[in-house]
């Protein structure tokens, strides 16, 4: 088992753990522990078929995540009891702070209502593209293209910090400091 191949799986592992746990540090730790366990397994002579490394490591990660969830449940008997009464809360609900939520909502506000609706069907209702196509009466291929364009746009808005609502003229009030005035020496 080649360790450099293992390292390439780290980001994916973090995302996988983040989905299950909704906590950035915990996700980092799960990724690290899964990789470490894979190294130990390799040391003990576990043979992983060529091309099955990712599946093997994903399996390890599921165990690490399950261990954590069990520990968390043990440490919080009250919330476990509450979980019986209330429907399970999505762990992702804990991921973002109020400012970050606001930033996402601002970015979403810049998409068209039909795109927002499409994203809701995808990421909240979890429908397959074929089901969405039927529901919207559009060909699946068009639904897919529209979705990837919306995601791409949203990614740009979020990574470029463009969720801000800009003042109508962004240069006003910003330029003077950089422009020499006429009476400057």
């Amino acid at each position, binding site marked *: 088992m080649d*360790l*450099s191949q*293992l*390292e*390439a*799986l780290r980001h*994916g*592992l*973090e*995302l*996988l753990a*983040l*989905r299950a746990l*909704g906590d*950035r*540090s915990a996700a*980092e*730790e799960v990724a*690290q*522990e899964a*990789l*470490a366990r894979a*190294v*130990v397994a390799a040391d003990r002579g576990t043979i992983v078929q060529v091309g099955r490394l*990712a599946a093997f*490591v*994903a399996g390890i990660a*599921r165990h690490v995540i399950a261990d954590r969830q069990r520990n968390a449940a043990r440490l919080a008997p009250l919330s476990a009891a509450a979980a019986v009464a209330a429907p399970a*809360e*999505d762990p*992702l*609900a804990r991921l*973002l*702070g109020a*400012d*970050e939520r*606001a*930033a*996402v*909502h*601002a*970015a*979403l*506000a810049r998409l068209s209502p039909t795109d927002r609706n499409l994203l809701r069907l*995808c*990421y*909240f209702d*979890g*429908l*397959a593209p074929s089901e969405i196509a039927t529901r919207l009466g559009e060909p699946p291929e068009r639904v*897919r293209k529209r*979705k990837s364009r919306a995601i791409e746009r949203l*990614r740009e808005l*979020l*990574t*470029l*910090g463009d*969720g*801000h*609502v800009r003042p109508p003229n962004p240069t006003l009030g910003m330029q003077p400091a950089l422009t020499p005035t006429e009476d400057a020496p």
Partner: protein
Amino acid sequence: MTADLTHLQADTDGLAARFVAGTLVGDALARFEAHLLECAACQAEVEVGMTLRAAGASPQAARARWVWPVTGVAAAAALVLLLTRPVVTDSRLATLGGLDTAPIHIGIAVRSDERDARFDAAMQAYRRGDYARAMTELSALRVVADAPPVLFFLGASALMVGADSLARDAYDALLASPESAYHDEARYYRAKAHLRAGRAAPAVADLRAISDATLRRQADALVDSIGAFGIR
């Protein structure tokens, strides 16, 4: 044994979105998870999808109707997509937590058995600047040999790759063990890890506990800088 997914299949079936929504189960879920570890395109989609869901999924709203409120002003949105990086509360503190160079390894043996060979291999990676690999190997070694040098350089490699919580964890374990030659330096670097997380108080406590004279001067300088920000 099921066949590997291609990205085209995953995309056609909208698996990334269903993974995010939690509607993928059983074998289909396991296959997608394995694919996700290797597919940058699916990782990108999952990042955006989880960000969306995290912004819309509030405990109070439960699974009622999903309405996107339109808010006027937003905070730094660039933070949102950096899902795996901890949000730093105070960037000045985080700067103080920076490291220009890694702690130097001069080659002290762990124990005289096969663990030495593994430690050496990890430290070779460390010396050539491959901190990610050093971290992975030292994490594995820690399971069988949690000696101070293993923990110390695990913490150091973790700091170098930005895995701050793992670094803190390693230094916590080291500092809980009987006093060793590594303890003072471990306090110094754990302070760095605290600073990166924006926590000034525990950082100052660690820095003040250092007794080694040389390190003491660096520690005092750092305490002064933290004080200069008016954060205690």
